[in-house]
């Protein structure tokens, strides 16, 4: 009896050791990505599990990282010599890393999606010296959202200019017993979104951040006007807007604490569906409109939210990561991924957009105006990545350093705190010049 038990125990130990050894033999492929909503992570893990069934020697580990943390974590991982095999990055991050020789070209991945199948606006998302280093996982555009019913109730028109936005925000503000119960407008003060806002608003004001020689142009008129606009925004936004995160602003809109949201995104509908009163949780109440235009500008502009997949050059599993991503982009996997946040995760492939299985989604049908607005921006080329006001800016490999330094954020808050706009701009100009000289991108 005793020997039978011993035998059984030994067999169990051997089995355990064998299974551990087999797990240890697997090649682990690590992917860092920015879609952190639980349902998206579940879909991604499901795709990974499906892939592993046909690739038993590979283990796919997918980690979700907060959007605002991505660059810092990638940099720390690179400094430690332990980057993942593949990762999302801002387009400017991708270009910066490609210019530094840290990435592997991904023409093989891009070609696998079909030569002309990638939506035109996103083909050049991450190119450096004629080669492709990134393929976007899913494009989205920032959106201007307003409460259609509240504007109608007060007989207000949808604002089209910066000044009209301020006036409308003032008119929409509501108070009760001396307390503000609803602000006209909400915006985030999060550094990443201030960088996004600076690029986007500057574009709507016909401005730029750098000249053709790569020298900063922060003392130009459109930038001064932008800082004046931020001063005005500061007067109509909730007093704590500088401390409001990206998701706080969605909550403000959905909970009826604000009537308009300037930097909204498609994922905001999830908040509206979840938190807004049921009878108003629809696009007839939460409507979208063109972004407002500055005094020196002519056309609206928005931010392109489309992180390219990057493969690190020294990654041991670069080939496997590309192979997994090819699998990820197959419609049977890609469509469920897009449907996990339906109005925010749009397709980068033309063929998927036309796929009836993709269109067959209740949320997409319901919130069609939000999707149409984003597609309008894509078609008109009104969208650019963060800090990019012209596609040629993507040839400047130092935008990542400019964003990371926080200089533009400091410039905005200097102005908001009361520093004259010209002085705040001049201070930022000097700091950016110093940064570019120190990093060797600009001569003194």
């Amino acid at each position, binding site marked *: 009896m005793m020997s039978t038990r011993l035998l059984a125990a030994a067999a169990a130990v051997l089995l355990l050791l064998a299974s551990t050894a087999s797990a240890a033999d697997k090649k682990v492929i690590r992917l860092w990505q920015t879609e952190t909503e639980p349902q998206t992570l579940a879909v991604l893990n499901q795709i990974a599990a499906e892939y592993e069934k046909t690739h038993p020697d590979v283990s796919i580990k997918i980690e979700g990282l907060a959007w*605002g943390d991505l*660059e*810092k974590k990638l*940099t*720390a991982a*690179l*400094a430690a*010599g332990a980057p993942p095999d593949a990762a999302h990055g801002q387009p400017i991050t991708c270009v910066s890393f490609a210019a*530094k020789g*840290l990435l592997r070209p991904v023409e093989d991945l891009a070609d696998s999606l079909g030569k002309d199948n990638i939506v035109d606006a996103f083909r050049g998302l991450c190119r450096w010296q004629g080669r492709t280093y990134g393929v976007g996982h899913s494009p989205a555009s920032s959106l201007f959202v307003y409460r259609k019913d509240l504007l109608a109730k007060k007989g207000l028109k949808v604002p089209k200019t910066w000044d009209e936005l301020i006036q409308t925000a003032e008119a929409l503000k509501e108070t009760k017993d*001396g*307390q*503000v119960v609803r602000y006209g407008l909400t915006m*985030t*003060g*999060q*550094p990443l979104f*201030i960088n996004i806002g600076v690029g986007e608003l500057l574009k709507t004001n016909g401005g730029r951040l750098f000249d053709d020689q790569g020298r900063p142009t922060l003392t130009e008129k459109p930038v001064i006007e932008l800082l004046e606009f931020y001063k005005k925004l500061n007067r109509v936004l*909730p*007093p*704590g*807007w*500088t*401390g*409001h*995160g990206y998701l*706080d602003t969605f*909550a*403000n809109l959905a*909970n009826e*604490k604000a009537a308009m949201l300037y930097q909204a995104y498609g994922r905001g509908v999830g908040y509206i569906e979840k938190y807004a009163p049921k009878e108003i949780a629809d696009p007839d109440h939460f409507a979208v409109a063109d972004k407002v235009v500055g005094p020196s500008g002519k056309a609206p502009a928005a931010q392109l939210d489309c992180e390219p997949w990057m493969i690190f050059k020294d990654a041991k599993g670069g080939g496997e990561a590309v192979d997994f991503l090819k699998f990820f982009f197959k419609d049977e996997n890609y469509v469920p991924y897009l449907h996990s946040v339906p109005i925010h995760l749009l397709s980068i492939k033309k063929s998927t957009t036309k796929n009836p299985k993709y269109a067959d989604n209740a949320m997409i049908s319901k919130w069609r105006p939000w999707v149409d607005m984003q597609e309008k921006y894509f078609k008109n080329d009104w969208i650019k990545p963060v800090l990019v006001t012209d596609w040629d800016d993507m040839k400047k490999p130092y935008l990542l*350093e400019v964003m*990371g*330094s*926080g200089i533009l*954020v*400091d410039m*905005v*808050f200097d102005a*908001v*705190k009361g520093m004259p706009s010209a002085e705040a701009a001049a201070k930022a100009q000097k700091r950016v010049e110093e*940064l570019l000289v*120190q*990093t060797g991108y600009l001569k003194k």
Partner: protein
Amino acid sequence: MPALVLIGALILYPVAYAIWLSFFDKHSFFPASRWVGFGNYDRLLGDPEFWDSLWKGVVYAASTTALQLVLGVVSALLLHHPFRGRTAARALVLFPYMIPTIVAVIVWRWLLNETFGLVDYTLVAWGLVRQPIVWLGVDHIMTSLIAMSVWQFTPFVTLGVLARLQTIPLELYEAARVDGASAWARFRYITLPQLRAVMFVVILLRGIWMFTKFDTVWLWGEGAGAGAEIRTLPIYTYMRTFTYYQAGFGAALSVIMFLMLMAATLVYFGFFWREEEAAA
């Protein structure tokens, strides 16, 4: 010998490497580097952001340490006296120090949110303020950070002081009472002198830890545009290293921070020893 190897590997090598790195112009993740001698230090002294972050760090460290000390001693004195439920109160007082920083920060940021937070709601409901206070905005973010840090770290002082209070011989107090000493006199001439050694350690440790505090400050300011208002020296050092990618300059900043703490510690030790000798 093993201890020496351990000290060398874990303390001396990183410090020596940081000093060595501070003499180079080095990108954060490229191996190539260029010797610049004292160039980074020269640049640092002329960098207004360095002085600004140093000042913010001093304000943060000094105010949080002072407040922790006062509140820590007061709470330890209260918890030293017997009362019903004292054991539960002692356990409860330690609670803020035990919870992870990220949890504490998220909970406090939520409580202090001026749109839906409980703190502002209560203040307005009770008529203490007319409009909600923007605790996380540019004007009050340093104040709210100090308050939150004091809440989180005071239990360390309480614990240290309470432990020492329990070892003070009761005979001293009895003798003082017989001599007619008031409660204040007993505190001033018995309790405080007995707490000197523990207070010395507590001030030193808390001062150093608050000056080099990274996680709480980073999490409090991260995600808020007002973060620049609490950009203390450790935060600025991190930014230079990991968002400007200037590892050499970042190393120079950390060396300066290290030297400042060393100097402050030596001055503090000197002051304490002089006091001890005078008392003896």
